[in-house]
């Protein structure tokens, strides 16, 4: 019973995508749109099949870099959020800085990171770490503070040890905030890795797109773009699915 509704949504969304691709194909063929504007989906698919090895390798590389950065950035961010929750003084100085940095265009520092860390995967992974770090820190710190004063008082009255207060109250309260951050940073890590590949690599999806464009291989360029988009969407969906698995209680969305 519970499966039917999501299944219906999946079918509807898949249907919308298929219709979209068919219309795209028809428009490009009927109006003979030049490939440099928008190649036909069939041409993109052809380029994808012809270069499956190269696109696959690029996908694997970008996916691995983004995933490493995502995991590293979140571990660091959440660890620091726990420290902030213990020390009000640290939080008062650190949290405004973190909130400000969360909204600063970190991607703009890719050239700087490239000069500091050099040409190679380190720069790319660090870029993805930075993108994930600040939202995790801000989300974690605000989430750990989210329990109501009454709930915290109850824990105190019951003389619950610190460990229990965290396990039963603060961490469950923080989870919705943390997952909200995950849903933003999972696709953002892909974006960050791709930007860093412009400056610090000659492989990966970000580089593939630029390189194919510069060689006027537009179907290949679009094959890279479609692959990158699917990677980002998959990252978002994965975060949402895990969220639904983990948070089984009703949450008031902020």
């Amino acid at each position, binding site marked *: 019973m519970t499966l039917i509704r999501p299944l219906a949504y999946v079918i509807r969304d898949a249907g*919308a995508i298929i219709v979209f691709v068919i219309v795209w194909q028809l428009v490009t063929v009927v109006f003979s749109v030049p490939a*440099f*504007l928008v190649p036909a989906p069939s041409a993109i698919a052809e380029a994808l099949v012809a270069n499956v090895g190269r696109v696959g390798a690029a996908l694997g590389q970008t996916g691995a870099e983004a995933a490493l950065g995502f995991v590293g950035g979140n571990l660091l961010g959440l660890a620091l959020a726990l420290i902030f929750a213990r020390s009000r003084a640290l939080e008062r100085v650190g949290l405004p800085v973190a909130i*400000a940095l969360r909204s600063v265009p970190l991607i703009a*520092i890719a*050239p700087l990171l490239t000069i500091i860390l050099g040409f190679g995967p380190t720069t790319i992974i660090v870029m993805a770490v930075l993108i994930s770090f600040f939202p995790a820190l801000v989300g974690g710190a605000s989430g750990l503070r989210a329990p109501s004063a009454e709930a915290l008082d109850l824990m105190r009255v019951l003389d619950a040890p610190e460990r229990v207060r965290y396990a039963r109250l603060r961490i469950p309260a923080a989870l919705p905030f943390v997952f909200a951050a995950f849903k933003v940073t999972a*696709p953002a890590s892909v974006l960050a890795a791709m930007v860093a590949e412009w400056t610090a690599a000659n492989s990966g999806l970000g580089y593939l797109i630029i390189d194919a464009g510069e060689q006027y291989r537009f179907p290949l*360029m679009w094959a890279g773009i479609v692959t990158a988009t699917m990677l*980002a*969407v998959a990252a978002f969906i994965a975060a949402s699915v895990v969220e639904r698995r983990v948070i089984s209680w009703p949450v008031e969305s902020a």
Partner: protein
Amino acid sequence: MRRRSVIETAVALVALVVVWEVVARLVGARFPVVPPPSEIAAATARSAYPIWLNLRLTLIEASIGLVAGSALGLLLAAAFVVWPRAEASLYNLVVTIHSIPLVAVAPILLIWFGVGITAPTIVAALACFFPMVVSATRGFRAASQSSLDLMRVLDAPSAQSFLRVRLPASLPFLIAALKIAAPAAVLGATVGEWLGTAGIGYLLFSSMANFQVALLWATMLIAASVAAIGYLAFAGVEHVLVDWHAHGSEA
């Protein structure tokens, strides 16, 4: 309370700059990629005019992108609220478009529009569009049901109930979206310029390629400051607005 935290942050910043200067001077020879702040300041002063020319271009692109992207997002959100059926069919499309990485869009736009102001402006608009759609849709829905019912009982035209009830209720959400969109516009414009021939994004890329380390740092700090100013400006508006909201409504 607020003033105190501002002072603390300022002190922390000054301390950071001083420590950075000292450390960079001590180990400078081994880490030429992290110049002391004084050198970055000198590079800024030396290249002030070219930096300003590039910055001006980026500011123009980011501003147009912010206004256009937010306006489009607002219109679409209004359409979603007025015609809920539009939301059912378009929302997933909006999410899909949003998940196309901006970095992947930039090269396409560059091919379509050529080198110039158009491509970065569109990237900036795209970066602002999505936060505005999501936030504004939520904001228009945040209007209290009793106020909406009252408008219906009074037989107010739906345009009026939109302007008088939904729009004011959504203001905090719109400001929150602008707080995200303003720095995002700067980022979008910068990424759009990356492959171009002018603007802060170009300056970042070219100073990296030419190993002009101090200029690269200067450009990066300026880009970050501009984005931060955009954020803080709307955070200030939000602060004023929340005060007004807290005093103005008894509900």
